[in-house]
């Protein structure tokens, strides 16, 4: 019986191998493409080609600088809005001062509050774009930067807070926040993995980013404005 099973298993592997017959390896054709991406060239003093990885690293440095500035500006603006309204702690979903004092606070004021929540949520989402761009570039190259995990952890907290607030009632924004939440969970969890494995996992995150069209959707929020 066990012999039959073994034969069956061998046969299944062989049948699949026969069915998916191998073509010759196009080694030279593939090498031409690979050679163009080699990190360093050493051809007897020929011109050095700036490797793709190095270009991305430079873009990354510029991206970090721009993103840091943007986050600072967004943080200050949100912080001010928070202090001016009711001093709420998170600075994300606390609305700016929509004045509705005394008995005059009716449906109009509530609608104003909702709009303010939505505007702040959109602003928060739009503020993620530069770093999300970097994350996408890293993910496509299978690279993982531990700083990115810390950033994702912060964004995860803020995204979850935003999801619990009225600003997330817009179905498009809510769907986007939920998709972003999943990505941030994945990225934040990578810090527990060895660097090599984390880099490989970034490949899967790249697929998820592409599949969800996340960057395009975040940019659309940015374009739409408050």
């Amino acid at each position, binding site marked *: 019986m066990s012999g*039959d099973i073994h*034969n*069956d*298993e*061998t*046969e*299944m*592997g062989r*049948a*699949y*191998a*026969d*069915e*998916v017959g*191998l*073509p010759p*390896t*196009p*080694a030279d*054709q*593939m*090498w031409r*493409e*690979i*050679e163009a*991406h*080699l*990190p*360093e*060239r*050493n*051809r007897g003093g020929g011109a050095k080609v700036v*490797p*793709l*990885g190095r270009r991305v690293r430079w873009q990354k440095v510029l991206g970090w600088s721009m993103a840091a500035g943007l986050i600072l500006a967004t943080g200050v603006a949100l912080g001010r809005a928070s202090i001016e309204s009711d001093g709420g702690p998170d600075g994300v979903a606390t609305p700016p001062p929509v004045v509705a004092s005394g008995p005059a606070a009716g449906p109009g004021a509530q609608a104003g509050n909702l709009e303010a929540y939505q505007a702040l949520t959109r602003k928060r989402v739009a503020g993620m774009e530069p770093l999300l761009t970097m994350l996408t570039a890293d993910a496509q*190259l*299978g*690279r993982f930067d531990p700083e990115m995990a810390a950033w994702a952890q912060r964004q995860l907290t803020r995204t979850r807070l935003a999801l619990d607030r009225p600003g997330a009632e817009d179905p498009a924004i809510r769907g986007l926040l939920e998709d972003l939440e999943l990505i941030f969970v994945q990225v934040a969890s990578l810090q527990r993995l060895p*660097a*090599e*494995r984390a*880099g*490989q996992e970034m*490949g*899967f995150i*790249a*697929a998820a980013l*592409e*599949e969800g069209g996340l960057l395009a959707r975040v940019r659309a929020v940015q374009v739409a404005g408050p």
Partner: protein
Amino acid sequence: MGRGDRALVARALEGDQGAYRTLYDGHVDRVFRLAFRMLANEEAATEATQKAFIRAFESLKQFRGDAAFSTWLHRVAVSVILNERRVAARRAPRELSFDEAVSHRSTLPRDVELGMGIRGAVQDLAEIYKTVFVMHDVEGYKHEEIADVLGVAVGTSKARLSRARAMLRQALGGDAQAAV
């Protein structure tokens, strides 16, 4: 081979392009075979193999030598291949679905029937089972090597293979045994 690969990696990191080519020549056939068996499409396999080597060479500094270069390269390759498979699955349906294959089997010789059925059945396996089945039963990798590449225990690799075979037997509805 392992020590030779490490020396080649060191030379490549110093900018020796010949070392890259030697590393490539030493491993390209096995990576391409795996990609082709997994993707069942020459163009997709070519694309995946290129991407795997490009990513591996760009990340060569991350190769610390605690595993064989071949194992490390295969980790990268499997990641790329699985991504390619997901992208391909989103863009277009398979050329021949399992149901289509089954519906056309009755007029075919039994060995052809088994081949057509098993192609669809393997393609329908979940990634974790398909990867182990193709690596072990089709390409002859050892469980220890599969476990290293996939970052799982040897027992997990064996369990997945056992499950993959059981699912294939079920999908083939006993044709596999009848054909042996």
